[in-house]
């Protein structure tokens, strides 16, 4: 739920449990078991970026529509600056499938609909210092969670067996072991693992995402003007 980590004193609408400036340090407390000490983010400045190893970012789209990733790509030419600042690890952007190193930031799109989503999310928690739920599906379940009022059996029945447009004379149900199993309901990310920040929006606009990522990278308070967090 959006109130999960809501903190009225948070600097802006990255509804945060802690202030961004402290994020790296506090993160250790929140998820100590999975967060070995890494280089503090504050030290990474653009000028020094060439000399020092860049902080790594991982992203994933789970039970989402890739809209949040599209929004990230919408930062236009700033993507060049972003690439100067960070290196992408596991992410659809560079198509790295498994974590090859520890990451500073994990951006999560979508909630958890399947066991594979849960596995993915847990991998993110293990490998990332800071996890950000990006967009309404990650923070609240979003559109996929509309099925939460219906049992899984009914959902599958409607989709594959008795729905009005289904032609399935052999009454088969897709059941290859390769296909992930579907959970009883769609879970927002923070119900499965601990999440550090929630960034609402459907999707959060490119400017919002860029402002949030750079604020995290530089350890600055996030300032989002009203236009960026107005959703009606």
């Amino acid at each position: 739920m959006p109130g999960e980590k809501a903190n009225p004193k948070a600097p802006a609408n990255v509804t945060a449990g802690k202030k961004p400036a402290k994020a790296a340090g506090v993160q250790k407390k929140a998820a100590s078991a999975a967060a070995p000490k890494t280089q503090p983010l504050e030290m990474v400045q653009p000028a020094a970026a060439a000399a020092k190893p860049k902080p790594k970012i991982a992203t994933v789209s789970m039970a989402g529509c890739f809209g949040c990733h599209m929004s990230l790509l919408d930062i236009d030419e700033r993507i060049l600056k972003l690439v100067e600042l960070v290196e992408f690890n596991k992410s659809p952007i560079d198509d790295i499938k498994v974590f090859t190193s520890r990451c500073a930031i994990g951006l999560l799109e979508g909630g958890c609909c399947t066991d594979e989503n849960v596995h993915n999310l847990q991998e993110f928690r293990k490998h990332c210092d800071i996890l950000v739920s990006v967009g309404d599906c990650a923070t609240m379940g979003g559109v996929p969670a509309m099925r939460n009022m219906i049992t899984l059996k009914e959902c599958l029945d409607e989709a594959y067996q008795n729905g009005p447009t289904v032609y399935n004379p052999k009454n088969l149900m897709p059941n290859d072991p390769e296909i992930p199993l579907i959970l009883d309901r769609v879970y927002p990310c923070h119900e499965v693992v601990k999440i550090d920040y929630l960034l609402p929006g459907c999707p959060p606009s490119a400017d919002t995402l860029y402002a949030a990522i750079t604020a995290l990278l530089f350890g600055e308070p996030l300032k989002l003007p009203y236009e960026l967090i107005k959703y009606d």
Partner: protein
Amino acid sequence: MDETLKKAVEEICQARGNDAGAMMDIVRQVQARFRGVSEEAIDLIAAQCHVPRVDVAGVVSFYAFLSTASKGQVVIRLCDDVIDRMYGAVAIAEAFSHELGIEMGQTTPDGKITLEWAPCMGLSDQAPAALVNDVPVTHLSTDKARHLIQSLRRYMDPSRLVERLGDGNNAHELVGAMVMNNVRKVGPVIFAPLGPGEAMKKALAMSPAEVIRDVKTARLRGRGGAGFPTGIKWEFTRAAAGSKKYVLCNADEGEPGTFKDRVILTEQPDLLAEGMAIAGYAIGADEGILYLRAEYAYLRRFLEQVLQRRREAGLLGKDVCGKKGFNFDIRIQMGAGAYICGEETSLISSCEGTRGDPKNRPPFPAQKGYRGCPTVVNNVETFCCAARVLEKGAGWFAQLGSPGSAGTKLLSISGDCLRPGVYEVEFGIKLTEVLRMAGGQEAQAVVVGGPSGQIVSAADFERPICYDHLATGGSLMIFGPQRDVLEIVEHFLDFFIEESCGYCTPCRVGNVLMKERVARIRSGKGELADLGYLERLGQTIKTASRCGLGQTSPNPMLSTLRKFRSAYDSRLVQQAGPFQSAFDIQAALAQAKEVQGRASVLFSGERHHR
């Protein structure tokens, strides 16, 4: 179209002038006659009263005693109060279920008996209790439950379940209930005798302004819980513009663990009627409404007779007590089972024949209340106190009690104590003294003021009961050392979830979130962060809810977080990891495994938590 239904609905509506304002009476009567208000009946009522269908459907769906589905000829409502639970209500429910072959909430296939849970019915001192139609059955046991069903099966007559009548007026021929008053301590204000019209005559010898002045001088404050100064309320209503004004008596005693109004209604209805008439004189009203909760319907005929007797004695009606030009009468409005109707603006909504939704304030009822007219709404006990103030004098009343809280207070005491019942004590009495009187010295926790009040521990037992310390509308529930505080909290949250009217989100959704998190902690899966979450969520619900229900529903949780911290701390997950302890992947996959017939490749065993 069912002709019998059509004809009956027409008759019922016409008898009330097809007035939608009398919707409560109309639907109650249709329910009683046809054991339900069917969709068809809703259409007919809407057409007959010229209101949109949704207005009628809204009322039917709102109140617990109304239903669209047809209920059994006899409805057994088993009290689901926390005290009843402690004394075996669940075992009794099982006995009923077993004997009838149905689950709670169902009706027997022959349509004869319906079995359901109901919130506190004001019988906590004689728990476990049930209402069989209108007949209260007390001190239930599993044996008695079986006998009860056998008797019903044989005679289908709830009145035959009463084998021995209770004390006082419970044995009156028009009451005939097995309920006990259990008055353990008689005080000078409520339970002292009163001659007919004694208080009213004194009031009518004064001007209305003088009556209000006396009530203010006596420092009388509302007894229902909020504690608003009664004289000031009356003054506002008197001063409000409008020629038609109303006096409403709140006898919708729904706060779990409260039953003192039931005893007043049984033993001192005349004192109440005098108080209402005095209020009418003071504010310039000629009509009073006694809003009686549906659970107390067994008192209705008795109360009607009291009112009739007073009319015949000239104490109600035209030129009351011979005072030329002062006309005042009282009618009884029945409720239909809704806790929220104890909130004054909801009570007004209900009287107006709509869903018992709270209204926005301002305007306050004193300016715009029942049917848009200035209205005084007071608790049963408050009217009784006001009558006594006029009879004995403001000075006499003001010297009782403590400086900030004048007079006496009725306490309804239940739970783990030797002498549950009603006590009239002076304000300022220490809780330890009350526990000693009631024989509950071993208490671990006392719920002061019901679920909407607070849960206090031994550290607070030396504090006095008054408006400024331990405030209560009358409910005191005692819990011994063997009880689980978190179970009580969770039960109260269930109650609020059930009783929330659903109008505002903080209350409708917030109570569910609170309950989920408390349940998580109880099940041993909570983490330290959950306590902070509960604290913040509770404050948000209190601040953002529209009426008293949501503004108080977090109280049991918030007060126990402070006073019984160890009950929470001791259940927390000690070594919290980066994953949520409460998320159980195997439980989340159980349905998929069943449908697809295979286990998860990624989460095959127990190894998922590291």
